[in-house]
């Protein structure tokens, strides 16, 4: 005996491991054993190889790494004796799987063993091949397996049949080789061979339509006869289970008949009698009998219609459904789901029983029943069914509420006969299980509310009532806060009363209370707080008497650590405090949200969690999106005159809700660049330009911004804006980002309206000259109209000419489309383009601009960049 190999026997090792009191002790024992086994492997120890492998298998089962033993399996398999091979193959199946490359090394040994004279060794090889073979091995060894389907011993034939199943699954092309030998297996008498043969034929039919045709023609009769003999066979102790001879074979034959009869009237007709016999004669007091009935029902449902059989099948399911055994009820629900496409009416008859199952104490049954109810709903029964489900929602288990809520919402949205009913049901769901409602569901609700103009008052009052009772349901709070922001005046003045409503008395300050509760509650998340902030802003305009209080509330978040809240607080505070004159127009009611777009979007929507990260990818190529939806950004004051570059359709609703919080810290990874709300600054830079422009105008900054967290993004921007400002040697204003400053009437401008500014040559290279002509828009000294003219001085024609510009953040830039994209050579023609620049720091700072010009000469892309500093003063 090798002095280094571990002397412990397998049994002793298992004992030692079981004796361990702690996980650490167990690890220590296993470490020691593994070390000994490794030493033995290094020594190439023969005597104890099989014992070591057995130990490794046990260690593997406990979840420890055992990859170092994989080669030992191969060595054992390659050795001559049966005991070594037996343990080697077992180890192979346990320690390896089809994806390991080591497995390829065993192909040769397998091939030899498949041709071995000892049938048990052949059996071992077949078993291993059937359990773990890869596609390559399947291809290599298929001829051997095919041959073994005709082996003299039935136990090898049955193993070869199952092995063939695996081979066909891995390489469906090989199916045709197996059709003939498989058909001959069906004629055997040995049950093991019959069972596996039928399975092989069923599998072949799945993979090849030719095989299906073949078996339909040649084997339908035989299979029906075998089943008939089996059903009528006398007691056979070897195969008897609960008084039935070989239920396994029963079930496999029924499955095979199902495949043969599916969409084939002749075959279906042929098997009618036997199916009827199985359905009526099988004892249903034991599990084995029920398993056969269950399979039989499924076969009846799948083959071509025969009215009488279907009735029989539905009756069996009805019996199953009222069975006291939970397993039977479960499979009944499962099968009714398939039956519903065949005979919906018959399933509807069991509606009451199915609804009871939704309330079962067993989670598996509940889930099945809920799926089934979902399929049962139609226009005529949606109201009572929804009522039942919502009533049950009140008492349902917490873990079931998520599923249940999702299904109710989906039913209500799909079948709602009228809007008021939809809104009522949704409010009930929100009040009961608002924390389980998915984002797109309450977004959808808001879209519907927004479209139901006659129900605005009713909805906001109902929400107000619901909020008083269940203010801890997140999505209820969100919808309430949004509606109060929008329709707060209707709440207070009882506008749009419906007959069914009881009038309520709500004061203006009560309405503000709701938003205050929402924003102050400790467990409100960022979305709620941000929405409440907007609601407050809107209320401040709707209820001037509360303006003071609201301002006070908003100011409290000026120091919030959450960037989004801080920014909103500062901006809103400035709106309330210093822009009274425009506040009311600023916070007007939302335009009606476009239902069709929302639904269309939802239909092809990506899961919510993915969407925000995808958005960046979607937006960048799209650039200035032409979104069909009305894009009104709350903060974007110039939205009337310029198309706001915002994220495309997919998140317009978030924009509308002021919800665009994807810049929140947790998403620092990929932050979409041009978006509204948070990224107003970026928007300003990108107005009218295409995204490549911004990324190249300030290539380093912006590109890196897209990778960095939102904070650094803002840093990047502020550095951007300061740079040109200081170059223009203007006093750098220390004021915070006062977006509205530009519109304030306090700019004491020595108005030079109508005065003529000199034209400048903004840029000139050897071949290209850009001239700017200036004019002022009447009545707004901040705005400068620039008429840019591009001339090509070289002899070559420039095609694909694109001019792009970027300005620092105190400027707003809007580019009109250029007059053309081809610039003829030698100064023979020109392209013109109009730019509109609004200087929010008019009088303090001067214009600066960066240019980027791209064009093609002789199929070569040329890119020029420049900074324009020589603008006339006072622009």
């Amino acid at each position, binding site marked *: 005996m090798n002095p280094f190999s571990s002397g412990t026997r397998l*049994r002793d090792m*298992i004992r030692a491991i*079981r004796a361990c009191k702690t996980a650490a002790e167990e690890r220590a024992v296993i470490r020691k054993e593994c070390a000994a086994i490794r030493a033995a492997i290094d020594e190439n120890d023969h005597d104890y190889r099989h014992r070591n492998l*057995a130990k490794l*298998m*046990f260690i593997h*089962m*406990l*979840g420890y790494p055992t990859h170092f033993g994989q080669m030992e399996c191969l060595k054992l398999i390659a050795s001559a*004796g*049966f*005991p070594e091979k*037996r*343990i080697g193959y*077992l180890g192979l*199946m*346990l320690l390896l*799987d089809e*994806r390991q490359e080591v497995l390829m090394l065993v192909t040769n040994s397998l091939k030899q063993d498949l041709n071995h004279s000892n049938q*048990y060794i052949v059996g071992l090889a*077949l*078993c291993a091949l*059937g*359990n773990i073979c890869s596609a390559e091995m399947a291809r290599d060894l298929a001829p051997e397996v095919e041959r073994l389907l005709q082996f003299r011993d039935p*136990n090898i034939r*049955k193993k070869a049949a*199952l*092995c063939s*199943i*695996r081979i066909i*699954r891995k390489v469906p092309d090989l199916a045709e080789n197996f059709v003939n030998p498989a058909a001959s297996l069906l004629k055997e008498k040995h*049950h*093991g061979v019959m*069972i*596996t043969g039928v*399975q092989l034929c069923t599998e072949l039919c799945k993979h090849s339509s030719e095989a299906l045709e073949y078996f339909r023609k040649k084997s339908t009769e035989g299979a029906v006869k075998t089943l008939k003999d089996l059903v009528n066979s006398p007691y056979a102790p*070897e195969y008897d*289970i609960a008084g039935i001879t*070989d*239920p*396994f074979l029963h*079930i*496999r034959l029924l499955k095979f008949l199902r495949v043969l009869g599916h969409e084939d009237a002749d075959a279906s007709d042929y098997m009618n009698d036997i199916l009827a016999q199985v359905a009526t004669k099988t004892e249903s007091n034991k*599990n*084995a009998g029920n*398993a056969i009935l*269950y*399979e039989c029902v*499924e076969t009846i449902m799948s083959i071509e219609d025969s009215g009488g059989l279907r009735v029989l099948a539905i009756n069996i399911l009805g019996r199953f459904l009222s069975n006291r055994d*939970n*397993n039977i009820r*479960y*499979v009944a629900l*499962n099968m009714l789901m398939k039956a519903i496409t065949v005979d919906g009416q018959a399933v509807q008859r069991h509606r009451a029983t199915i609804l009871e199952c939704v309330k079962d*104490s*067993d*989670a*598996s*049954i509940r889930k*099945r029943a809920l799926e089934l109810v979902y399929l049962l709903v139609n226009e005529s029964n949606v109201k009572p069914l929804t009522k039942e489900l919502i009533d049950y929602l009140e008492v349902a288990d917490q873990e079931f509420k998520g599923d249940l809520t999702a299904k109710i919402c989906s039913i209500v949205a799909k079948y709602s006969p009228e809007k008021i009913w939809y809104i009522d049901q949704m409010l009930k769901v929100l009040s009961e299980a608002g924390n389980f409602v998915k984002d797109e569901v309450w977004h959808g609700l808001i879209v519907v509310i927004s479209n139901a103009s006659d129900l605005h008052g009713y909805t906001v009052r109902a929400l107000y009532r619901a909020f008083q009772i269940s203010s801890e349901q997140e999505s209820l709070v969100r919808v309430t806060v949004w509606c109060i922001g929008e329709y707060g005046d209707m709440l207070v003045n009882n506008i749009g009363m419906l007959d069914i409503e009881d009038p309520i008395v709500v004061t203006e300050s009560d309405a503000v209370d709701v938003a205050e509760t929402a924003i102050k509650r400790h467990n409100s998340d960022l979305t709620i707080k941000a929405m409440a902030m907007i609601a407050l802003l809107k209320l401040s305009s709707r209820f001037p008497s509360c303006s003071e209080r609201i301002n006070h509330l908003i100011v409290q978040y000026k120091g919030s650590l959450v960037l989004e809240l801080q920014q909103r607080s500062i901006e809103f505070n400035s709106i309330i405090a210093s822009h009274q004159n425009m506040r009311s127009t600023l916070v007007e009611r939302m335009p009606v949200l476009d239902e069709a777009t929302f639904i269309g979007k939802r239909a092809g929507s990506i899961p919510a969690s993915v969407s925000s990260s995808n958005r960046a990818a979607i937006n960048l190529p799209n650039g200035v999106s032409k979104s069909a939806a009305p894009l009104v950004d709350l903060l974007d004051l110039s939205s009337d005159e310029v198309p706001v570059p915002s994220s495309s359709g997919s998140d317009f609703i978030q924009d509308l809700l002021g919800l665009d919080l994807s810049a929140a810290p947790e998403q620092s990874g990929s932050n979409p660049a041009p978006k509204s709300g948070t990224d107003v600054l970026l928007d300003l830079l990108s107005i009218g330009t295409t995204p490549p422009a911004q990324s190249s105008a300030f290539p380093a900054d912006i590109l890196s911004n897209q990778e960095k967290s939102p904070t650094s993004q803002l840093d990047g921007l502020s550095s951007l804006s300061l740079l040109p400002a200081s170059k223009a040697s203007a006093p750098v204003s220390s004021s915070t980002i006062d977006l509205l400053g530009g519109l304030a009437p306090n700019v004491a401008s020595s108005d030079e309206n109508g005065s003529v500014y000199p034209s400048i040559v903004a840029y000139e290279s050897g071949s290209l000259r850009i001239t700017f002509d200036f004019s002022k828009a009447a009545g707004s000294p901040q705005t400068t109209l620039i008429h840019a003219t591009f001339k090509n001085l070289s002899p070559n024609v420039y095609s694909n000419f694109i001019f792009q510009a970027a300005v620092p953040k105190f400027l707003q830039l809007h580019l009109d489309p250029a007059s053309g994209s081809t610039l003829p050579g030698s100064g023979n023609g020109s392209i013109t383009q109009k730019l509109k620049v609004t200087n929010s720091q008019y009088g303090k700072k001067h214009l600066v601009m960066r240019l980027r010009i791209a064009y093609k000469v002789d199929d070569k892309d040329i890119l020029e960049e420049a900074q324009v500093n020589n603008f006339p003063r006072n622009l």
Partner: protein
Amino acid sequence: MIHFVLLISRQGKVRLTKWYSPYTQKERSKVIRELSGMILNRGPKLCNFVEWRGLKAVYKRYASLYFCMCIDQDDNELEVLECIHHFVEILDRYFGSVCELDLIFNFHKAYYILDELLIAGELQESSKKTVARLIAAQDSLVETAKEQASSISNIIAQATK
């Protein structure tokens, strides 16, 4: 088809695992963790099926052991229960009223039996007698080989004395 077979003790210890579909080692331990958590926590009177990741786990408890087989959505759950029972009966016959300890110390034998019952996740044999006969035949092959080996080593030992 059966994707995998698990034997888990009431304490959550794994007693046997057999995988007929490819799962990496990591996935395997995750599957075991998730399923044993779900199955061990279910009450006694509930049905024997758990829906899990688009598959169904059919389980049945025998004394301190849970036998679990994971199948496709549209397989026959009741039949798989019967399959589990079939396996347990064969184990019972082989070990003579089987208990958990038999399966711990003779885990490889349990695997041999399972290999005579299932291949590629499909049932191979419906006769308990046939399985028992095949296992016995292979066991005796091993015994003979062992005897031969020991007699040979005796001869060698004597010869080299």
